[in-house]
């Protein structure tokens, strides 16, 4: 039993995680393509027209997955940053840095698709209601995290400073999620939640969930690719990177 536990911890070192990540990446790309294709097929071809919004609602198949992922990736990023801060594990800090750009991308997509959706349906690109404003703050947190890490040359100090920012920013996630419940907002409430049955037609729901899964798998694949380059960059003076490059060169 103890051997198994040690086996898992083995992958906390960049040297052993690098080849593992390399083997996993193609699988996550394949899953992302599979779920994405299935989700978009259902979303654009099979899901029925909405009674209120007509065909325009179909942007939901990108908007909701992007919003979910922007919040979820932040939590994962803060988790790795916190682990790195508490246990001084190099790989955790690298994981946090690798996730930030993808999280920022999804936060931006969420705001962008939301604006494109808001104009025809609500009558405005943007309003300063609690949901939209807190999601914008999330985008700024991601950008702040990336900028802060880029501004500090020593990677270990950069990790520490970034980790504190990431952990402080976690406060914003429940605010985004519950903003539509706590305050009067223009944004409507959640259609899908853990506490009640989803208020969507089944086919629409399946399309949205599959698209979200596709985005999730994409995020894992791209984060693993990014963490591999960060590993090479930060550990370039170590023996394992040298021997790896010698093998290839």
């Amino acid at each position, binding site marked *: 039993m103890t051997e198994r536990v040690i086996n898992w911890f083995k992958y906390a070192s960049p040297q052993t995680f690098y080849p593992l990540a390399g083997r996993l990446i193609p699988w996550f790309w394949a899953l992302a393509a599979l779920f994405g294709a299935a989700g978009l097929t259902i979303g654009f071809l099979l899901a*029925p*027209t*909405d*009674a*209120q*919004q007509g065909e325009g*609602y179909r942007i*939901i198949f990108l908007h909701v997955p992007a919003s979910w992922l922007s919040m979820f990736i932040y939590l994962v990023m803060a988790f790795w940053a*916190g682990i790195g*801060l*508490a*246990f*001084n594990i190099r790989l955790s800090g690298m994981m946090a840095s690798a996730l930030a750009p993808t999280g920022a991308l999804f936060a931006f997509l969420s705001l962008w698709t939301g604006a494109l959706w808001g104009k*025809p*349906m*609500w*009558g*405005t690109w943007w*309003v*300063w*209601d*609690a949901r939209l404003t807190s999601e914008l703050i999330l985008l700024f947190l991601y950008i702040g995290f990336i900028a802060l890490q880029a501004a500090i040359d020593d990677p270990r100090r950069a990790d520490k400073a970034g980790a504190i920012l990431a*952990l*402080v920013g*976690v*406060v914003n996630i429940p*605010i985004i999620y519950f903003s539509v419940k*706590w*305050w*009067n*907002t*223009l944004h*409507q*409430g*959640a*259609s899908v939640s853990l506490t009640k049955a989803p*208020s*969507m*037609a089944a086919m*629409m729901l399946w399309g949205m969930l599959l698209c979200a899964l596709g985005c999730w798998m994409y995020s894992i694949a791209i984060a693993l690719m990014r963490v591999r380059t960060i590993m090479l960059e930060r550990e370039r003076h170590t023996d394992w990177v040298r021997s790896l490059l010698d093998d290839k060169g």
Partner: protein
Amino acid sequence: MKPRHKRIALIVGGLVVLGIAAMLVLNAFQSNLVFFFSPTQVAAGQAPVGKSFRIGGMVKEGSLARQADGVTMHFVVTDTDKEMTVAYQGILPDLFREGKGVVAQGKLGDGGLFTASEVLAKHDENYMPPEAAKAVGDAHQRAAANKAAAEAASKTIKQ
């Protein structure tokens, strides 16, 4: 205490303090974070006086009317308890419907007429095909008809 445990304690303690601070701040800002006021809140005098603010609620069925000047629209916003009449000149959003949600920004006039400078449609979180929406609507109508019939029947029995 190992340094690692100290760090963990610091992080957890910091997060708890931060969470409490955030809760207190949000509590203090409660009223400012409200995007719109309901007609009941306006009637209770909670809305700012003499300043522009937003009201939100349902557009009352059958209340949308074009005024004699040809460009001003009047409609009634209700939260099923209190009502307010809104005047608006401009293009209403596509999703603006009687019986659906609306948010209007503007000022409250002396006669209780709310003059809006911007009208936004607020849709709900339900997504369904038109056939399903029609079925739900029909079911509501049947339920209402049944209720009315039952009330009428109980009245006749009492008489």
